[in-house]
């Protein structure tokens, strides 16, 4: 099967994560299989913030979890710092995972309601016996202060007593407890109020700067990732459409889907309402994706070639890679 191409892969020594030909399928009954992630490859260099953007059903959440082997992908490689996580025995995977931590969309569901904040943050430290009780207690205070919470006020309270934004801060503190080198943030601000979103994005940016983290930031919203990302990858139905640095992608999108996404974002300025031709229809079912280019059923530029041959990623301008037979240039 044709992959989505590997032209965008970098052979730098700084690469910390390489995902190659990743396939994740879900079985929904006897003969019904959904291929949520379909032979996808990408890499992340040290300290990079990679944004993965796409609409519901594009496989972005599944992709994020498959990196952590939760659940393991059906095929493909996930090489983190030189180790292929898909090949690791269970016990080694357990410790390897601690270098990559996750932040979830629903800040309340990601914290056990029965536990206090102290217990929540202590949990990873306790599993790996990082220091005695007193050392851990010092560490918990430090982590909470780092994410902008007053440890004295919050330690003995339960997650449900907090607002969504505060819960997300607690989640970030917990994720940082084991000194991870990579964070996978799955829609970390989508469930938050608009005035709180910027706080959390800025906090993630601060943590990135302070700890030299690599971050995979998964979102449905191109506007949300613009401020924080170094590289943006647009997904559609389990495949990559376009990969580019934000300065290029937002100014000169080469894929028709990227441009449609950009045009769909509501602009909070009545004087600059672009009434361009909107994308018609909705994404087809991932159970039965179109042949050739997966976007062709909604694409104004689609041709016969698009129905026959799947486009491979290629570089159309320095750093900008697009999987389209008829890119916008």
């Amino acid at each position, binding site marked *: 099967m044709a992959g989505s191409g590997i032209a965008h892969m970098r052979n730098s020594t700084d690469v910390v994560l390489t995902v190659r030909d990743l396939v994740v399928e879900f079985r929904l009954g006897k003969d019904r299989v959904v291929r949520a992630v379909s032979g996808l490859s990408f890499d992340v260099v040290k300290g990079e913030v990679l944004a993965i953007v796409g*609409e*519901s059903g594009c496989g972005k959440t599944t992709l994020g979890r498959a990196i952590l082997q939760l659940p393991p992908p059906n095929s493909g490689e996930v090489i983190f710092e030189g180790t292929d996580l898909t090949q690791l025995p269970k016990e080694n995977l357990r410790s390897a995972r601690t270098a990559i931590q996750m932040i979830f969309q629903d800040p309340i569901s990601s914290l056990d309601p029965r536990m206090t904040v102290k217990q929540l943050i202590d949990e990873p430290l306790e599993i790996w016996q990082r220091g005695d009780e007193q050392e851990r207690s010092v560490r918990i205070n430090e982590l909470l202060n780092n994410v902008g919470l007053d440890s004295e006020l919050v330690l003995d309270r339960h997650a449900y007593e907090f*607002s969504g*934004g*505060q819960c997300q801060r607690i989640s970030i503190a917990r994720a940082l407890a084991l000194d991870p080198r990579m964070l996978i943030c799955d829609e970390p601000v989508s469930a938050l*109020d*608009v*005035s*709180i*979103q*910027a*706080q959390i*994005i*800025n906090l993630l*940016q601060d943590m990135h700067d302070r700890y030299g983290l690599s971050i995979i930031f998964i979102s*449905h*919203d*191109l*506007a*949300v*990732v*613009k*401020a924080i*990302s*170094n590289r943006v990858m647009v997904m559609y139905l389990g495949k990559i459409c376009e990969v580019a*640095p*934000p*300065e290029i992608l*937002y100014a000169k999108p080469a894929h028709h889907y990227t441009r*449609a*996404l*950009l*045009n*769909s*974002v*509501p*602009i*909070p*300025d*009545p*004087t600059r*309402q672009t009434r361009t031709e*909107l*994308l*018609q*229809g*909705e*994404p087809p079912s991932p159970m039965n994706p179109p042949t050739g280019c997966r976007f062709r059923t909604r694409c104004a530029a689609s041709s016969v070639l698009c129905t026959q041959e799947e486009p491979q990623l290629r570089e159309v301008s320095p750093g900008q890679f697009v999987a389209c037979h008829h890119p916008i240039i």
Partner: protein
Amino acid sequence: MNSLLSIKDLNVSFDTPRGMLEAVRNVDIEIAAGMSVGIVGESGSGKTVLSRAAMGLLQGSNVHRTGTVVFDGHELTAMTRPEVRSHFGTGMAMIFQDPMTALNPVRRIGAQISESLIFRLGMSKKDALKRSLELLQLVRIPDAKSMLRKFPYQLSGGMRQRVMIAIAISCNPKLLFADEPTTALDVTVQAQILQLLRELREDLGMAMVLVTHDLGVVAGNTDYVAVMYAGQVVEFSPTTKLFADMRMPYTEALLESIPKIDHPAGKRLLAIAGRLPDPTDRGSGCSFAPRCRYSQAKCLEESPTLKTDPDGHLYRCLFPIGEAL
């Protein structure tokens, strides 16, 4: 101005285990026929409660309400529930965030659209089905004929919302309430639904109240905007005027803080510090004062009243933007 919906000094509060929750405080809004008004606010701002109260939907033993809501010459606040309901469909109609819960899962789409046509307009079953087909075409559903025979679970989120809109406009309402109609949808579908609502409003001449958390959504789709914070309308003005010349520091801070598509890449966002106020503890002074960059000592003591610019721009601030201290 001939007003279609007139809300006067509306207060709504609820008894909750944690104490009295003042959801809506001293709200006055006038909506003329054909006008579209956006109500913008975050969670706990009171925007949803306000829209429910405006539809006459809030009744119950734990609800305390003062003030009046007059729709098309009828005072909804003095009506019983069945009387209020008699205005639904022909007078006002509504669409919600989650169309799946508003549609009956075991009935076909055709039956659900014709229902109100038969019930409200007294159409025959045959005429109602014919009209349903036209309505589905009106909301740009491809292959509308086969849609009549489908069940809600067979539809995507965007299609369901289109069906909801078809039901809402079936009896030519004068006013459409849209409560976060696109929040559950993907951006490309959101854009389609917003465009549809714009076009339908122009064609049918109906007024619309668009409740949303997204300043971007109101910017392109409403004539007027009411910004809500902590249960109060803190700013109200024509949409173009609001974005060009905002007076309320909250509106300014909110607009600055939201991630925007034209934000310079790699540049830090301007966040509003602090968190949303506790709705059970309104305290004294301006509700936004603890988070406001312009706040003065006076703001913590004195509750600002609604001031009016000569051009009708309303704001609730002691030290509005653009006024020398």
